[in-house]
């Protein structure tokens, strides 16, 4: 429905305000003997039996149980590794540092002995980070992504994370999941690709 299309409101038939004492008396009688109060009692009793015996509880015992979160959820960042070589994916381009709108990413890079960019310093100040997801979106290598760690209460405002802290541990490499969230290509990305005009 378009936003400017006229809304089709339906007025509920609530009946008018009783005009005469006889009308109010009839209304009281109708409401008294309609049994609506017992409908209420039945609903709560039914919900109690559902809760007790059919597992209809809505409570999640939070620290003990956790609900699954969407891959698009933007929590503490992860640094991913290349699956084949185990080297970190970051190429030191500095785009995440440039795009960060709260200036919380700080990185220093240098050339290593193979004339390849190497990350020498990389920190994210999670006291400043607003978890906007621009860094994950801009990253050309899907190296910096958002993970699922959302329990980040701390005793200080500033909380710096180092590159190594966020990097997938090398022995857990086989557990590394490809990121599906913000900035990652969608699952059906291949199907969506159209031929460029040059291909015709």
């Amino acid at each position: 429905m378009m936003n400017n299309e006229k809304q089709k409101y339906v007025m509920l038939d609530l009946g008018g305000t009783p005009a005469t004492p006889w009308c109010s008396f009839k209304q009281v009688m109708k409401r008294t003997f309609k049994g609506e109060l017992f409908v209420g009692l039945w609903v709560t009793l039914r919900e109690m039996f559902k809760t007790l015996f059919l597992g209809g509880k809505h409570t999640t015992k939070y620290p003990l149980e956790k609900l699954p979160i969407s891959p698009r959820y933007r929590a503490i960042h992860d640094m991913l590794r290349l699956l084949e070589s185990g080297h970190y994916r970051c190429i030191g381009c500095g785009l995440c540092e440039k795009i960060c709108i709260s200036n919380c990413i700080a990185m220093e890079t240098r050339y290593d002995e193979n004339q390849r960019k190497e990350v020498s310093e990389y920190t994210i100040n999670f006291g400043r980070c607003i978890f906007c997801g621009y860094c994950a979106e801009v990253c050309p290598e899907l190296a910096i992504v958002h993970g699922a760690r959302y329990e980040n209460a701390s005793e200080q405002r500033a909380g710096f994370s180092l590159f190594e802290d966020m990097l997938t541990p090398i022995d857990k490499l086989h557990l590394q999941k490809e990121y599906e969230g913000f900035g990652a290509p969608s699952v059906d990305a291949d199907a969506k690709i159209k031929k460029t005009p040059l291909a015709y």
Partner: protein
Amino acid sequence: MDALLIGTVIKIVLVLAIVAALAGFGTYLERKVLAFMQRRLGPTHVGPFGLLQIVADGIKLFTKEDFIPQNANKFIFMMAPVVTAATAFIALSAVPLFPTFTIPDAIPFIGGAIVPSVIADINVAILFVLGMMGAGLYGPLLAGMAQANKWGIIGAARTAVQFLSYEVVTGLSILAPIMLVGSLSLIDFNNAQTGGIGSWIVWQQPVAFVLFLIAGFAETNRTPFDLLEHEAEVVSGYATEYSGLRWGMFFIGEYANMITIALLASIIFFGGFTPLGFIPGWLAILLKVTFFFFLMLWVRASWPHIRPDQLMWFCWKVLMPIAVINIIITGIVIMI
């Protein structure tokens, strides 16, 4: 005489201890039942199934500061919760709890003694119980007026209005069963219904029972008539300035009153402690009281509460005329 005195003292101590403990347990039950009806869990962490939550609450109440506001009338402020708790327990003294039983001979010293399970079988028990529950009005009323707090005053005024109005309905609704039985003693009421389920007074006086139940809800301040301490309107009403154990005494009194009303309803209308088929009398009355207690929690989970003007309208324009008509019809039927 000495045996009677000692027995009475023992019974008083037992009733005080057990009903006070049951009042605490009632808060646990209320939280659990409300939670299940709202698809929650209720207390779970303290002890098995959260049962020790009562103890935790008790420790919290004991260790809280006993706060007395600066401009309060200190003596009355300190005494008011005692009035509520005391009247609630005094009312229980004339209510028979179980059938009369004989202590087994195996127990030394007291073996073979016949124990009537009522502290005082007075011949005007119903009047006494209703009077004592009516005197319980002074607890909230004095509390609200002594604490120099406007919310307290409003809560106290609502309490006074509600109690006074619904005392009328309670008295009038019970009058019809009293006319049928011809006695004010609760033991006589019980003995008048010994003929099984068919002889329960509720079948002869269904209107009186409904009226009594509604008025009982109002007198114990239960939903849908809990507007004297409804926090969305008057903070906590008469209990606004209370903390710690004094606040706890109000609640022990309220829960003891709930138990009293449940007992009265079971004895007057539902056959009391007469054996029910294969169910022995003591279990029968326990089940009935449990049902009425559960009904109060059930209603609280289900129904919204009503406005003060609706409360007054309901009492004086609906319940009282019906009660009077009920009495007149009962009287005519008895005469014929």
